[in-house]
């Protein structure tokens, strides 16, 4: 059972009132994970969106260009959602997410989320907006990296 106060630290949910976070918490399930356990595997679609409530997770995005694998490693902070893009567009996850320590997750299944959107409860569009904002923030960071790489390649005529 997830207490609504645990969603206070989920930054992109700041636009939800306490009552709305409580309604969302009721629709979520709590998942305990063990160190070393994979929560998402790259190449597999995700059936749920997850938020880290406690513990530490590693994230590794893997992309293959001209048969050369490139990886974006990182540590997921508490309060961060993951699995969003895959749950929204239905395509396979591009990242592997693995527990570094014992951890607790909150999860909302794809079907439960879609039912929430259809229900007319404002929590549905508010949650979708929060998720899109989180993806747009990540996109902005990738855009900035791409700009720096383009500039470097242009300056060095590569």
């Amino acid at each position, binding site marked *: 059972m997830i207490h609504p106060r645990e969603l206070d630290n989920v930054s992109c949910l700041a636009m939800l009132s306490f009552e709305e976070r409580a309604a969302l918490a009721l629709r979520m399930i709590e998942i305990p994970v063990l160190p070393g356990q994979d929560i998402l595997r790259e190449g597999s679609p995700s059936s749920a969106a997850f938020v880290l409530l406690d513990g530490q997770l590693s994230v590794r*995005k893997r*992309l*293959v*260009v*001209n048969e*050369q*694998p*490139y*990886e*974006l*490693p*990182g540590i997921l902070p508490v309060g961060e959602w993951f699995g969003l*893009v895959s749950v*929204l*567009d239905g*395509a396979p996850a*591009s990242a592997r997410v693995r527990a570094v320590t014992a951890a607790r997750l909150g999860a909302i299944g794809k079907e439960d989320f879609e039912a929430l*959107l259809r229900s*007319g*409860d*404002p*929590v*549905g*569009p*508010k949650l*979708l*907006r929060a998720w*899109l*904002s989180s*993806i*747009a*923030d*990540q*996109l*902005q960071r*990738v*855009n900035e*990296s*791409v700009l*720096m*790489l*383009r500039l*470097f*390649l242009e300056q*060095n005529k*590569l």
Partner: protein
Amino acid sequence: MQIMDDRLDEVARNLRANPIFKSMGAVEAVSVLKAGTTMACGEGEVLFAEGDPCDGFYVVLTGRFGVMGVRDGEPLALAIIGPGECIGEMSLTRATPRSATVRALSNSTVWHLAGSVFETLIAQGDTRATHILQGLQVEICRRFRDELLVGAELAARASAVDEGRLLVESLGWEV
């Protein structure tokens, strides 16, 4: 100015390729269009300037707009936005100020959904807000996956030299 009722179907048909409208049926598209207004912009007029607070998002109905930048000290349109394309949707999603100045390159008209209207639709759980967000969802997820691949391709090219490999690593990428 509101779109005249007898033109709503025609405008909705013209927006079929727009990422926000293409997943909507005709009835939903007309219903969403009714929540916004149309505006005329004369050639050279600034739609919004870099740093302005977000006032909603726009869809070009006629004419052309330029996303302005500066090259060699001169203002330059870095990207051209034409009929059926969106302007300012990322700023609306992230609730952040405008990241660039957008100027009309010809006499143009746009459909505008005010940020305050969008927020009200969301707060009320209005199905139109869900339709708009689901359109944005498709577009943002596509852009995110595409841009990751572009990043990986550029990282691969930059890694051909030592300095580039260091830059790639400093950006958080790993071979």
